[in-house]
């Protein structure tokens, strides 16, 4: 079927996508790398000069950088732990026979479709508000004094909000994977006398391994870039207590107009994301051959 003509046609059909993506990747990334070696502040744009490694030194030795790296890891790790464990359990539950399964499924996946600023504002005001929020009401009902989430445990509060948004994603993908497990295999194990516990650890969990890998990798890509949830709840504070790397770059470049410093931070973020990406690409690439 592939004559020379169709091959030429195929190349023409691909060209716009390839060229656009190439430009989109190379031009801004090249500029970011260039700016990261420049002294360039928008408050004083005439004073642009070569900076060597100064921006990197400055960005990395800033105490806010270390804290934001720690926060980024806690945020990604915390959300992953909640969503993968919670998602597996909920998927397991949804896979059982029940009444109204379709509706429960819809209820469970809904948070994923809520745009980040809305999710964050609903949680911030109506659930976590120390005076009028539902959590405060519940705490007072049990005679505990309500906590001021965004002042006392700001990062944990952000983790909860983000986990709520991503729990449906993990659940949905793990449920899809679970449903592809053959019924015969489970029945056979049941006849062999395996109890529910053994079935889960020796049959279901190994079957889910691949899906869990995919969930972890894809979520990591998105979780490294969490931004709006922090912006509308804590604005990175108090201090730098809930600032992640993405938010630190935003703050440096777009709020303090330090183009050089922000670009250096951007390059560091790209390197970090690439480390994760390599693993993801391997997991996805394997699937292409089959």
């Amino acid at each position, binding site marked *: 079927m592939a004559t020379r003509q169709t091959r030429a046609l195929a190349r023409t*059909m*691909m060209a*716009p*996508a*390839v060229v*656009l993506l190439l430009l989109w990747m190379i031009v*801004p*990334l090249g*500029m*970011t790398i260039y700016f990261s070696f420049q002294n360039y502040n928008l408050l004083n744009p005439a004073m642009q000069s070569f900076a060597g490694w100064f921006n990197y030194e400055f960005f990395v030795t800033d105490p806010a950088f270390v804290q934001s790296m720690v926060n980024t890891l806690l945020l990604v790790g915390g959300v992953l732990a909640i969503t993968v464990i919670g998602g597996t359990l909920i998927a397991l*539950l949804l896979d*059982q*026979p*029940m009444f109204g399964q379709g509706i*429960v499924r*819809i*209820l*469970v996946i*809904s*948070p994923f*479709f809520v*745009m980040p*600023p*809305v999710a*964050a*504002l609903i949680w*911030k*005001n*109506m*659930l976590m508000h120390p*005076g*009028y929020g*539902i959590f405060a*009401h519940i705490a007072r009902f049990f005679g505990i004094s309500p906590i001021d989430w965004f002042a006392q445990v700001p990062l944990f509060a952000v983790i909860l909000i983000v986990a709520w948004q991503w729990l*449906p*994603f993990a659940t*949905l*993908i793990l449920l*899809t994977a679970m449903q*592809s497990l053959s*019924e015969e295999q489970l029945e056979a194990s049941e006849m062999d006398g395996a109890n529910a516990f053994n079935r889960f650890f020796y049959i279901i969990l190994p079957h889910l391994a691949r899906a869990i890998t*995919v969930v972890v990798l894809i979520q990591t890509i998105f979780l490294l870039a969490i*931004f*709006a949830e922090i*912006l*509308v709840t804590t604005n990175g504070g108090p201090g730098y207590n809930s600032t992640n790397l*993405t938010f630190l*770059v935003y703050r440096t*470049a*777009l709020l303090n107009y330090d*183009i050089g410093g922000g*670009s250096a931070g*951007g390059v560091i*973020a790209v390197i970090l*994301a690439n480390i*994760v*990406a390599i693993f993801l690409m391997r997991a*996805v*690439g394997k699937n*292409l051959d089959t």
Partner: protein
Amino acid sequence: MARSVRPQTKIAFTVLAWLVGLILFFPILWAILTSFKTESEAIASPPVVLPSVWTLENYFDVQARSDYFKHFFNSVLISVGSTLIGLFIGVPAAWSMAFSPTKRTKDILMWMLSTKMMPAVGVVVPIYLLFRDWQLLDTVHGLTFVLTMINLPIIIWMLYTYFREIPVDILEAARMDGAELWKEIVYVLVPMAIPGIASTLLLNVILAWNEAFWTINLTAAQAAPLTAFISSFSSPQGLFWAKLSAASTLAIAPILLLGWFSQKQLVRGLTFGAVK
């Protein structure tokens, strides 16, 4: 589902599952309920579950005070626009990779996926400066372009996995029967490709609608879609929870409905075909 279970077990699972579902859905439900309350009822203590009088006042207020529908239409323009442009570029590309693959097709696909891995903060500085110089800041078309680019890899990947499932033999059979090329395309290929294209469209409208980094950083009053508009509620301006809830409900309702219809495609699109 063929396994037989005792009715008690089934009821127990039902109760537990509904409980989990309702807890997860609660924040959304609460926002919807609050949007019909008066402001004083919205912050009443102890909380009022159902509004004593269902009022639409908050919805009118949000529109009157901040021209809500301007932002709503910005969201529609940007999400639908970027998806359509993405499909216009992506369909031919995915098509040719699925039907006349070469040795490099796999590498090109992987490379396209890798552009999606680039964090936004890695390129936000130059994009911001270029947009400033080209007067694209706070414009709908500027933002549409950015969202087209960030979703293009997903569009191509999704389409590719769908197109690959179309059996090529059918095309050849049609050709043997003497069908002309255009007939082959219109009567054989298009009907088989449409479901995949529709799913891709749906998922990408959802993703673009909810995108909240570029939309917030590249817009101000004029081109702000709902993500940016809602974010402006974060600055404390008193406790206007009922109005905030009304704005939120309107912002998530259309996408919630679309999302419910596209559960299956969601899995496939977001895992780049790795889980089906």
